[in-house]
């Protein structure tokens, strides 16, 4: 990691290879200099070695050199050409005639009008042989070089002749001589070109049409010249030349016309241009200067316009065109009356059940009512609740408060509450009553999706907490406020319910966008905040940022090894499955690691209770003391088990179990009695602990029968984990009684998770946690997750790969923004008594909001186009298809180019608003 702070000097030197040589400057001869120098030499020797030993390396080098050198030569050549115009008129004219003729004749040659196919052309064959000899026969594809040489040698000869004529023209100012040289010379070049003219491309010229076209174009030319009040003669000649070309080649049929005609037809336009050039005379110095300056913008812009136009603008337009055709993109779909059906491909996308597949029973139906009536009733109840809420609020409102007529909070709570209750009822009631309570909002085959129910409940909690908060701060949602958590979590859960129910390509893309954007930005922000000002901040940030350097394909491969699932009879080699299976073993008591769990659990329980005891009154102190008793019990018992468990005699088990249960009961009774005496929190804790104890005893009893192994440590773990649960619940209760709702969220969530673990662990509900399952014989065995194949959550595991990469990006940008927040603002807030978290939510976050916007929009655009990860990991199988992969599949594997084009345009249209927003913003800032 020593290279992280690469100094400017080093970086600049290294980067100089990408540009022109920097101004001559002696580099200081530091050791680093010699290291770099010797590295360069080693690299050079390596390259030479490759070139000598590998034919492929040689041909690669030739390809690269031809590509880069050729492009550079053309551009520098153009500049050098126009450098001559001021002082070296003769040379300039000669080169100009040469180049223009070369370009024009090459274009004609490329259209198979002059020159021959390589197979028939002896000269082209000879050139090929020569070129292939140089590049040892492996230069690019076989067809490229022969075709190129076949096309280029005749234009070269013609261009040299034209160059000579240009040179001759500059040597005289006499009009007659110039006319003779210009018209005659270029005419002769034309005759030569006509002689090389391909038989198949000879025009069947019609004299009347030819004269008419020529006269028309000449007239237009003259008219333009007249209007611009300059000499009409020259534009007329140019027009005549263009008209002739159209008349001779555009209008008539091309084919086997007479050769004499062809030569005339080819020769006349150059002759006309020759006349025009002769009339021009040699330019004065001032005019030449103007050419010099005006030419540059074209030279500087031409390559960019050519590439960008040819490879972006034109293809984009033709993709739109293609998407309007039929599925394979061959032709338009027409109905009986001949009208084209332009949007068939787009309709296909949205009609296809693979794009999104709404379930049949998207319904909400209360007892005895129709669907419509149920929804109307819900709406009415919502409105009524809003007014009732307003009435309640008016009665309790103080004098300085404007009495609200309608309370949106009550309304929204009612809405979500009824939905949540209905969903729960629907799920709990047996299916025979379904006709009475029909309610399968975002239904799974088994009823309303569990996620939907939990999401709706959490949203209802959000509204409730928001209302309480509103009475204190006047805002329902606020950054960092307690209501923000339930809002985000509830929204996310409902979103997950929607996307896992409405499966399909479009839904998957939506899912990707929401999850990757949210988690990359959120994690990036969290890490940026965590790392801010920490020692070795750069190292930590480098580690997080490093995945940005790895290709998406590479990242997919890396994560494939994280996700790999081996057969359950062998050891798991993927990190995640290994952990999952290990968790399963621990929770079913099959490994010594469960002892570690006991000890850690005991310590955590002690720490938490201890913390509570210090913060609160003596009552809690006693609770804490009881917790210590319980935890120490757990540890001692664990140690006993460690030694006694190996013998596995039932007497030991019995003794240990009796001791354990006795201690646990004493502890629980102590807690309960003490709590009842004084403290509400203690009461809650005690009651809950009684429940836990019941669970422990239940587990003990259930394993006594011997259906599961390792029952003793089940009891031990149960007691220890129960202590943690107790502490967490006490903490929650304490925070709730002080109306610290935000502070209650974390312990509550932890308590819920641990409670779930305990229930599963003690086999009260299901058996065990993690990658274990019971097979048909009744034995426990490893049961790994096949992360990339088990739909629908496999999509989520693919998203993890992109989150892994993009978090670094978000982190670096947000970290820079956080550091740019003025220190005075933060200091001022702290002087006013703001806590760290208040400073973050109220000062830092609003300050960096625009940057968060940038990060979010950038990631959205990137995710909309996600292709590599899906293609490599699943290729869209197992219901993980996304738009970009579908587009690739349709366009390049199924040959449905029309359909593929429509998908591409769909991606384009979806990112367009964001890109427009981004580009406008960038423009404003520059």
């Amino acid at each position, binding site marked *: 990691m020593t290279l992280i702070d690469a100094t400017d000097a080093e970086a*600049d030197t290294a*980067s100089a290879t990408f540009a022109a040589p920097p101004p001559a400057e002696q580099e200081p001869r530091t050791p680093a200099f010699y290291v770099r120098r010797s590295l360069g030499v080693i690299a050079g020797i390596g390259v030479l070695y490759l070139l000598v030993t590998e034919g492929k390396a040689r041909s690669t080098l030739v390809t690269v050199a031809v590509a880069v050198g050729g492009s550079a030569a053309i551009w520098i050549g153009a500049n050098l050409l126009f450098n001559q115009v001021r002082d070296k008129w003769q040379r300039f004219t000669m080169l100009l005639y040469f180049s223009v003729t070369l370009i024009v004749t090459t274009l004609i040659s490329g259209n198979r009008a002059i020159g021959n196919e390589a197979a028939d052309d002896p000269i082209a064959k000879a050139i090929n042989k020569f070129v292939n000899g140089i590049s040892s026969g492996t230069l690019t594809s076989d*067809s490229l070089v022969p075709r190129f040489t076949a096309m280029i040698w005749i234009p070269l000869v013609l261009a040299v002749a034209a160059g000579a004529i240009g040179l001759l023209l500059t040597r005289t100012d006499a009009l007659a001589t110039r006319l003779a040289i210009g018209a005659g010379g270029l005419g002769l070049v034309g005759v030569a070109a006509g002689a090389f003219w391909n038989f198949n491309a000879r025009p069947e010229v019609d004299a009347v049409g030819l004269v008419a076209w020529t006269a028309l174009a000449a007239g237009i030319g003259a008219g333009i010249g007249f209007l611009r009040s300059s000499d009409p003669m020259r534009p007329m000649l140019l027009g005549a030349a263009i008209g002739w070309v159209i008349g001779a080649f555009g209008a008539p049929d091309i084919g086997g016309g007479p050769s004499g005609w062809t030569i005339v037809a080819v020769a006349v336009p150059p002759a006309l241009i020759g006349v025009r050039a002769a009339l021009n005379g040699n330019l004065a110095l001032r005019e030449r200067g103007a050419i010099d300056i005006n030419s540059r913008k074209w030279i500087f812009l031409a390559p960019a316009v050519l590439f960008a136009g040819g490879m972006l603008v034109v*293809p984009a337009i033709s993709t739109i065109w293609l998407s309007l055709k039929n599925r394979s993109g061959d032709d338009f779909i027409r109905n009986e009356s001949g009208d084209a059906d332009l949007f068939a491909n787009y309709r296909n996308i949205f009609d296809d059940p693979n794009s999104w597949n709404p379930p049949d029973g998207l319904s909400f139906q209360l007892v005895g009512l129709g669907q419509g009536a149920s929804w109307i009733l819900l709406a009415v109840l919502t409105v009524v609740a809003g007014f009732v809420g307003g009435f309640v609020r008016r009665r309790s409102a103080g004098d300085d408060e404007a009495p609200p007529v309608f309370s949106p909070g009550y309304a929204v709570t009612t809405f979500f509450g009824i939905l949540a209750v209905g969903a729960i009822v629907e799920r709990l009631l047996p299916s025979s009553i379904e006709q009475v309570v029909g309610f399968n909002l975002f239904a799974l085959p088994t009823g309303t999706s569990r996620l939907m129910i939990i999401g709706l409940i959490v949203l209802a909690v959000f509204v409730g907490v928001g209302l309480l908060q509103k009475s204190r701060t006047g805002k329902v949602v606020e950054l960092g406020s307690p209501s923000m958590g339930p809002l985000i979590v509830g929204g996310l859960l409902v979103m997950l319910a929607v996307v896992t129910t409405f499966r399909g390509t479009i839904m998957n893309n939506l899912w990707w966008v929401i999850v990757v954007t949210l988690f990359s930005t959120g994690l990036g922000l969290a890490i940026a905040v965590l790392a801010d000002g920490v020692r070795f901040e750069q190292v930590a940030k*480098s580690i997080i940022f490093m995945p940005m350097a790895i290709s998406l394909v590479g990242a*997919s491969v890396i994560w494939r*090894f*994280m996700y790999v699932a081996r057969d359950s009879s062998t050891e798991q080699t993927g990190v995640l499955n290994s952990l999952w299976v290990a968790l399963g073993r621990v929770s079913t008591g099959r490994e010594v690691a469960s002892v570690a769990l006991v000890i850690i659990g005991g310590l955590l329980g002690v720490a938490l209770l201890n913390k509570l005891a210090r913060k609160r009154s003596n009552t809690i102190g006693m609770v804490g003391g009881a917790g210590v008793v319980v935890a120490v019990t757990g540890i001692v018992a664990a140690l006993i088990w460690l030694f006694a468990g190996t013998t596995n005699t039932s007497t030991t088990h019995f003794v240990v179990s009796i001791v354990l249960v006795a201690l646990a009961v004493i502890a629980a009774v102590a807690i309960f009695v003490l709590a009842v005496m004084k403290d509400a929190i203690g009461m809650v804790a005690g009651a809950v602990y009684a429940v836990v104890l019941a669970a422990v005893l239940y587990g003990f009893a259930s394993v006594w029968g011997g259906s599961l192994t390792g029952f003793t440590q089940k009891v031990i773990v149960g007691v220890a984990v129960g202590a943690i649960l107790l502490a967490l619940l006490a903490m929650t209760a304490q925070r709730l009684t002080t109306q610290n709702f935000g502070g209650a969220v974390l312990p509550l969530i932890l308590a819920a998770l641990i409670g779930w673990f305990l229930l599963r662990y003690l086999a009260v509900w299901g058996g065990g946690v993690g990658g274990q399952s019971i097979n048909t014989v009744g034995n426990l065995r490893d049961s790994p997750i096949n992360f990339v194949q088990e739909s629908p959550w496999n999509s989520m595991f693919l998203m993890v790969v992109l989150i892994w990469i993009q978090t670094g990006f978000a982190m670096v940008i947000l970290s820079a923004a956080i550091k740019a927040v003025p220190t005075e603002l933060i200091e001022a807030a702290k002087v006013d008594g703001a806590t760290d978290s208040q400073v973050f939510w109220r000062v830092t976050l609003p300050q960096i909001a625009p940057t968060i916007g940038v990060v979010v929009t950038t990631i959205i655009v990137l995710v909309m186009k996600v292709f590599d990860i899906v293609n*490599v990991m699943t290729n869209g199988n197992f219901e993980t298809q996304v738009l970009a992969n579908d587009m690739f599949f349709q366009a390049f594997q199924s040959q449905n180019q029309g359909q593929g084009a429509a998908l591409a345009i769909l991606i384009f249209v979806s990112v367009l608003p964001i890109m427009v927003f981004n580009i406008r913003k960038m423009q404003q800032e520059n």
Partner: protein
Amino acid sequence: MSNITPVTSDVDAPGSLADTSDVMGSSHGNSGPKGPAGKLYGWLRSIPVWALWGIALVWSLPTVGLFLSGFRTRDAQRQTGWWDIRLDELSLDNYETVFGARSSLKDSLLNSMAVAIPATLIPIAVAAFAAYAFAWIDFKGRKTLFIITVSLLAIPLQVALIPLLRLWVSGARFTIPFLDKTITLVPDFNLVGSTTAVWLTHTGFALPFAIFLLHNYISSLPKDVFEAARIDGADHFTIFWRLVLPLSVPVLAAFAIFQFLWTWNDYLIAKTMAGNNPDAQVTTILIANLAGDFGANEHLLPAAAFVQAFFPLVVFFALQKYFVRGMLAGAVKG
């Protein structure tokens, strides 16, 4: 949005990892109660740091695992996880195999070079010319043309792929309206399946972004430098060559690194334009094919993937400042 174009300032760019640390350091450790409670408080305060290092550990785990797996034998990889690594099972066999005579990794590395080098150098050159023209050559319609060029950033890659593939297969033809004659604008060189088609596509696609980035920088160069040169009789070509290019080294380097990595790591364009030709296979395609070929050669995959990631990682560690700038600047690329 200044962080999108960090290269425009020569001071340490925002977003560079080399930011001065400890700006906020004073906020740590000097508050809170003293004594045992202070100890507890200090311990609680250090939780975020541990969380940070925990995240960093999790983040590096996949890459470390891949790196270690690359050195383990086929059997070892199949039987145990990489965390069970033992000294006696380490070997360079996988690397020898992927570099060996029967493997195409070496060829694909050369192909990647044949794509990435022209696809880096040519867009830089073309974009530098255009950026200079947009910034310092006066002509009518300059602003309009520039806005059009930049707005091409909005076009996603997918939109251009089908017509470009057709272009490389069968050239480009244009039927003149009314005359009903078809002329060939680009002959059918049959470039499909060649590295040339891949880098040409990259070149076209890189331009709007490159022009935008370089224009930001070149247009912010001090005006008097140009005026002085003009008075000395320098023409545009000389100014560009002798002044602009040397002065623009930072932005050129940032873009070069970004573009090199982009093309080196690209999968979609290479797969579309040359995915079916084993002779023109780039490294990403090779690895993807290896990954798709379940079972047989899976033990070679870590080594091959690591070789593929080697150059980007070297660039990352050696030129981190430019890498970060390039990556951040490149984020806006469509």
